[in-house]
């Protein structure tokens, strides 16, 4: 049965397009819409966390400054850390994965579209919930690490810590369902022919990251729940006077917290492994080693948590073990860095803004990695632990391996998402402001730490060798902030006025570049077939796209996509995808009301919200009439 391209597109649009109405916006399950929302929301939180940092740097610019009260400073640094780790660094990568995992695997959506919508709404509401604490002047004040017993009721009787606990419990729901969605999509929805060995590195990193989330996040969720029980019901998990342990929190928190570092940097590595080969115009060197390094980092990351605790008085043998594990995890990172260097060495680089950010990432991340080795050495860590040296280290790692790759990824994929190129001229300004500002702002923190400046202090004494370094840090941080603003301005201007990019402006190698820019709601009119790692380089486009004739690849009798086998990606079935639905939003809203009512101890509202949540789940799963199948293609 012959099919014209026009009628096929019409049919797929009819099946997949979400109406451009308010209801459409609230009910959509389109992974691309949700991905963009994730990215924008995460950048809003990045700006909020950045404003908090800017206020703190003003307070610390001079010794003995009185701009902020100690309590205000403590709330700001707690919210800065919590925001950056939970509301920016992980969600921004979820944004990329939401948008690009289906495009990279050659599928029409993620495996559980409604769960995906739910995941976004819960993330948004958890962020709003956490930030509403500022309205009542009771933002979390125990740091993002929230150590007990400082955060137990006797020492912190307000609702500050309850905001933290409840927000993180709800956020963990969002992150967990997101991880499940990515794992199933990557393992079961790859285009025919995309064997595990042909899977792009970004998918390896998303897969590894998602597995890490599934196995590490329960430690945090459990710890927050236990702390909330201690605070509300008088249990004694963390109370040494009641047989609990004040160190238990630290073990649980870091058993989650260190793997989480890899959650927020591995997808950054993935972005680099995607974009760098394109800009140096050759395939990634030692591809298999980079893929396996990603997996190795994810696994070894579970064995290093106690290196955050070398000053608590652990047994010597235990410290030796965790120090050794912290040395070993350097090796897979070393393999990846060497592979990237070798790739750029033997390639023909094109110095786009995106590539500059990748080079910036390499410099910053290597410095962060080296200072990481220094902090991983037990005896010297007794000196630098909890000083500004560690503040420098963690910003070199997180800004280096998260923000720089993320910005590189935005410059790289922006044409795919919007159909327009970003300004290279403004882009180079944003790069140099960010790169220079970052190093001026954060490198002196190593020195402040060596001069004995502890972390989390709202002020310091004059004449202790800290005056100049702190002033320089503040100036650098402000230059860095201007660079981030220039980048954001570039995004906004280019989205409206950027030159049209076409489908594949960089000559990218992977499947997302085989679609129009921006891709249609169904991504691929024909499910693509893959025969190599770099299909766009190795195959003519017709071979990837295939003809319109084969109904087992056009899948037009509903919202359908292909499901394939785990190892070899052989087609095994046709998946019927969920339609748009309001229920994920209603469920998320009910849970948010539940969060507020449990915060304020209004039992009756909690009960009503709980029932509403159950009803929403019922509505979600209520069988719907299958979308009409008439109008079949003639």
């Amino acid at each position, binding site marked *: 049965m012959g099919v014209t391209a026009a009628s096929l597109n019409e049919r797929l649009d009819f099946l997949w397009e979400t109406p451009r109405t308010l209801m459409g916006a609230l009910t959509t399950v389109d992974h691309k819409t949700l991905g963009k929302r994730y990215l924008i929301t995460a950048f809003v939180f990045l700006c909020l966390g950045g404003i908090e940092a800017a206020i703190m740097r003003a307070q610390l610019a001079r010794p003995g400054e009185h701009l902020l009260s100690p309590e205000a400073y403590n709330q700001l640094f707690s919210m800065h850390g919590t925001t950056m780790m939970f509301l920016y660094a992980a969600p921004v990568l979820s944004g990329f994965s939401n948008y690009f995992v289906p495009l990279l695997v050659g599928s029409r959506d993620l495996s559980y579209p409604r769960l995906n919508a739910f995941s976004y709404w819960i993330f948004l509401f958890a962020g709003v919930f956490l930030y509403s604490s500022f309205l009542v002047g009771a933002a979390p004040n125990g740091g993002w690490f929230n150590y007990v017993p400082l955060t137990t009721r006797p020492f912190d009787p307000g609702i500050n810590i309850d905001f933290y606990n409840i927000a993180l419990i709800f956020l963990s729901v969002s992150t967990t369902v997101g991880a499940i969605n990515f794992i199933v999509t990557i393992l079961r929805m790859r285009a025919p022919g995309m064997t595990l060995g042909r899977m792009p590195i970004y998918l390896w990193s998303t897969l590894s990251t998602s597995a890490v989330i599934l196995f590490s996040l329960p430690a945090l969720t459990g710890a927050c729940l236990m702390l909330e029980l201690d605070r509300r019901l008088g249990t004694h998990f963390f109370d040494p006077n009641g047989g609990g342990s004040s160190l238990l929190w630290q073990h649980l928190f870091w058993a989650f917290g260190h793997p989480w570092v890899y959650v927020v940097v591995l997808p950054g590595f993935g972005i680099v492994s995607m974009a760098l080969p394109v800009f140096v115009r050759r395939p990634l060197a030692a591809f298999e080693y980079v893929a396996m390094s990603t997996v190795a980092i994810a696994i070894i990351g579970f064995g290093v948590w106690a290196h955050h605790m070398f000053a608590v008085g652990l047994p010597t043998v235990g410290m030796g073990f965790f120090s050794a594990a912290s040395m070993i995890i350097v090796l897979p990172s070393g393999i990846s860095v060497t592979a990237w260097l070798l790739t750029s060495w033997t390639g023909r680089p094109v110095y786009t803004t995106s590539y500059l950010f990748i080079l910036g990432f390499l410099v910053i991340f290597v410095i962060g990695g080296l200072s990481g080795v220094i902090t991983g050495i037990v*005896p010297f860590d007794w000196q630098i632990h909890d000083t500004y040296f560690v503040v420098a280290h963690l910003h070199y790692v997180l800004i280096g391996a998260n923000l720089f790759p993320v910005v590189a990824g935005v410059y790289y994929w922006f044409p795919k998402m919007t159909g327009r190129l970003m300004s290279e001229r403004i882009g180079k300004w944003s790069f140099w402001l960010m790169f220079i500002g970052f190093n001026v702002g954060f490198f002196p923190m190593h020195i402040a730490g060596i001069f004995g400046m502890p972390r989390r202090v709202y002020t310091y004494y004059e004449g202790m060798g800290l005056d100049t370094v702190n002033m320089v840090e503040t100036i650098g941080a402000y230059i860095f902030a201007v660079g981030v603003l220039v980048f954001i301005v570039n995004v906004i201007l280019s989205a409206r006025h950027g030159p049209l990019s076409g489908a594949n402006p960089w000559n990218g190698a992977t499947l997302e570049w085989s679609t129009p820019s921006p891709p249609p709601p169904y991504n691929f009119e024909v499910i693509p077939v893959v025969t190599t790692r770099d299909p766009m380089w190795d195959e003519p486009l017709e071979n990837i796209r295939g003809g319109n004739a084969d109904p087992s690849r056009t899948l037009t009798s509903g919202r359908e996509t292909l499901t394939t086998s785990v190892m070899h990606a052989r087609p095994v079935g046709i998946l019927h995808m969920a339609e748009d639905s309001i229920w994920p939003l209603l469920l998320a809203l009910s849970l948010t009301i539940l969060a507020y009512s449990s915060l304020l101890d209004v039992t009756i509202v909690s009960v009503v919200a709980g029932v509403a949540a159950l009803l929403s789940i019922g509505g979600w799963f209520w069988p719907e009439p299958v979308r009409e199948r008439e109008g079949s293609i003639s």
Partner: protein
Amino acid sequence: MNELPGGIPNMLAPRGIAAQHLATLGWVLIVISIIVLILVLIALLVPLGRDREHGVDHEPGYKAREHTFVLVIGAAIPALILLGVYLYSMKDIGLWEFGSHSTADVEVIGHQFWWEVRYPKLGIHTANEIYIPSGTRVRIALMSSDVIHSFWVPQLHGKLDLIPGRVNRFWIEADSAGQYRGECAEFCGPQHAHMDFTVVAVPKGEFSRWAAEQQKPAAPPADPAAAEGRRAFQFAGCAYCHTVNGNGAAGRVGPDLTHFASRLTIGAGMLPNTRGALAGWVVGAQHLKPGVRMPDVTMSGEELQAVLAYLEGLR
């Protein structure tokens, strides 16, 4: 300029055997890191100067060579360096060990936001100041009465936490007489920034004289003003929180003031112990150190002067 005791707490300017070991280790780590960083920067800059038309080398076997290169440069050589660094660092991992049969010379108990210091063998109670004989290993037991704090004198040793429900033990030793600044290194609440202390190392003979002075009960008021101050001290409620041994005040919430006038600082290393600073502290502690347990004490000018005279007599 800073008039507080103890210089810059620079960990790379050690004044004790333990900190000396750690500083040497630190320099080794820093120098190796700088060398590796320079090599990586050179590797990054190489492609900048290369002929851009020269593409990837597709000779047979190039993939295998790339794999070998990545494995050797990225993993094998770093593994050797890391193994060396790790083994080298292990020589110092027992550096704080205390000896299981020893008892502590000094007990340090963390409070929000000050340090209680006891010498159990000598029967001395003091605060925010640790006198030690120079050239001697002083064993310290660390405890906390409330939240987690961390004991850190960068020029003498690394840090070790004070954890409620546990006792951590280690030691410090100063090579020579001097004052060394110590800090709380674990976030412990609103005034974590102002929880400092001073280690005062003195020759052995001087230490014995200091100990003998500290063991005495408080001096009785020397003049009528001081005697009036003692009454005001009781009347204003100071005695609910502070102990003045021998003068009837036995509060345990704040620092023991029996030999207050012999101390170098007020407010846990915050202010020099001068009459002006003390007056400001008594009437305005909440202004100087918001969140401290010490309340702003309301008293008349005469009462304040009397209390100052009394406290200054507690040598």
